[in-house]
């Protein structure tokens, strides 16, 4: 019995050692695999920079004023809020604002109507469906209504009326969202990114060690050896998921480092990836890494050629890319969705980034389901490798 155990250990060690050697020696494939990890901090930094710029600074907006001369005070108010005349647009941005083409018409009788207290109509023209136009339009609207209110209040005050009469009901907003929630978009992206990385990083190793080995005629040799197919599959799974775990860990570490360079306090976010968050994320993502590699191996072994494997297995990336988006759009999520791989994890990760307390039961339930499916895939694959069909595909 003891010697039997020994044999299993020796075989298993040799299988894993060999898979690791092959995976880590293919430097180019490894670099491609981990590219996502290295890109992550760059992407996230750029995204946050752009978002912060949009939210915090009021970037200059250039508008075509018709009749600016009739309302100098209004134009000054616009200019104070960084809404400028189109004639001042710098050359490099001219094309952009020409294309956005926001026009405000100020009527000729502005000054006289103002003096007489008649309502004045300003006309704002723009393509409101253009997303880039929406923010400037909102800002213009706010400025005009504030400008209008301030004049109105002054008129009432002059007539001896308390301006509070104008606001019989006042809504006082108290934001109960934790500060982190303001950073939702980036955090949700990071969640999807992490799960995609779990799928992407191990991809090349999974294909290479399955369909690739079959194409290079080494699989037949291996299947002729006195080793159970289960051991072979587990060794390949461990090797592929190791790479994918490395990818995920790299992303987490690099992101937590790079987020420090972006000043998030400007938008009131206190987004941080501290050690405990990273630990929880890893606890969630490691089962996904195994699940992803198991799926990829399972599909790659079914295909007829390396090329087919590459294209078919590539489709699997759709799972982590689409499921979280679909889940987050669903309003009434059925409970069982919480337990499915990817869907469950994506919801938990979303909550972690929102700052909501972690539902540990959900964490363990979804991890358990993910691991169960992974085990089932491994067992099915081990059985498949014993069948003649796989052998027939060899020749």
């Amino acid at each position: 019995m003891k010697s039997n155990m020994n044999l299993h250990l020796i075989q298993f060690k040799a299988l894993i050692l060999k898979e690791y050697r092959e995976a880590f020696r293919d430097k180019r494939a490894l670099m491609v695999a981990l590219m996502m990890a290295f890109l992550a901090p760059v992407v996230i930094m750029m995204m946050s920079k752009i978002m912060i710029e949009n939210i915090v600074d009021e970037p200059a907006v250039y508008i075509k004023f018709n009749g600016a001369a009739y309302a100098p005070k209004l134009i000054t108010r616009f200019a104070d809020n960084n809404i400028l005349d189109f004639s001042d647009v710098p050359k490099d941005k001219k094309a952009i604002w020409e294309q956005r083409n926001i026009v405000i018409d100020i009527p000729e009788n502005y000054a006289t109507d103002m003096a007489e207290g008649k309502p004045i109509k300003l006309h704002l023209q723009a393509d409101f469906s253009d997303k880039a136009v929406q923010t400037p339009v909102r800002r213009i609207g706010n400025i005009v209504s504030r400008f209008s209110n301030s004049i109105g209040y002054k008129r009432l005050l002059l007539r001896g009326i308390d301006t509070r009469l104008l606001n019989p009901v006042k809504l006082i907003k108290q934001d109960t969202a934790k500060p982190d929630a303001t950073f939702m978009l980036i955090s949700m992206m990071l969640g999807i990114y992490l799960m995609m990385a779990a799928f992407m990083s191990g991809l090349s190793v999974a294909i290479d060690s399955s369909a690739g080995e079959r194409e290079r005629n080494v699989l037949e040799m291996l299947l002729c050896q006195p080793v159970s197919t289960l051991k072979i599959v587990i060794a390949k799974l461990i090797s592929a998921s190791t790479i994918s775990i490395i990818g995920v860990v790299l992303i987490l570490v690099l992101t937590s480092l790079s987020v420090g360079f972006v000043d998030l306090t400007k938008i009131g976010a206190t987004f941080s990836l501290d050690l405990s968050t990273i630990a929880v994320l890893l606890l969630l993502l490691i089962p996904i890494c195994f699940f992803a590699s198991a799926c990829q191996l399972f599909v790659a072994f079914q295909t007829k050629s390396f090329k087919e494997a590459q294209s078919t297995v590539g489709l699997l990336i759709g799972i982590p890319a689409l499921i979280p988006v679909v889940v987050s759009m669903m309003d009434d999520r059925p409970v069982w969705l919480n337990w499915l791989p990817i869907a469950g994890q994506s919801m938990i990760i979303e909550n972690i980034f929102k700052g909501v307390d972690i539902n540990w039961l959900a964490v363990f339930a979804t991890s358990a389901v993910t691991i169960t499916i992974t085990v089932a895939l491994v067992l099915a694959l081990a059985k498949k490798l014993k069948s003649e069909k796989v052998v027939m595909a060899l020749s």
Partner: protein
Amino acid sequence: MIEVNNLHKSFFIKGNKGGKKDKHNNVKALDGLSFTAKDGEITGILGPNGAGKTTCLRTLYGLLSADEGFATIDGISVTENPLEARAKLGIFPDKFGLYERLTAYEQIDYFASLHGMSGQTKKNAIEQVIEDLELGELAHRKTVGFSQGQRMKVTLAQSLVHQPQNFVLDEPTRGLDVMSTRVLRNHLAKFKAKGHCILFSSHVMQEVAALCDRVIIVANGKLAAQGTPQELCDLAGETLLEEAFVKLIGSDEGVAA
């Protein structure tokens, strides 16, 4: 000892007639093949292309399961106990590849470990097989870029390193130069003297004539004839094994008629 008894195996070819299963879509690869390869003997399998040699050998490895009949290795059934049976086999397959990112030594080491060898025993066995097959210079190079002959040698080394009781070699000399062929022959002869059972398929008649104690001729998935090379020549009334082979096969396939 390798024993093959009344093996039947047919393959279903898809797509011929709208995918329907009928007799035309079935290729009968083995049709009641039986033979025995004894310990201390070199047994050669001869047969034209498509005669069922590789199918027969794959059944021996347990990669394919026979529709009927059985194969045993040292009395162990390959279908019932494939892992134990394979442990007694050294296999040089029909198609082989190398792990191109490993060195020759690492590959041999890998297969030795798969057969449960470890520690100093494994080390000695690897050194021995590398010396025997004159692989010393190549041992610590990655196998990418190896010539056909060098690849064959590495594959041979990895199938022989655990000194199996039974060797099965599917055309082991294709692509080998004269020197390497001699090395291989001497190697096989040495193992034969030690009482191992060697079964190999080949298309080179001189080699079979020079090396084999017994020859099995397979045609259409059946045993066409068997005996020592001399017996086969006598049977066909020819002096050269090649002529005898063609005659023995041809009588079945109508080539000689």
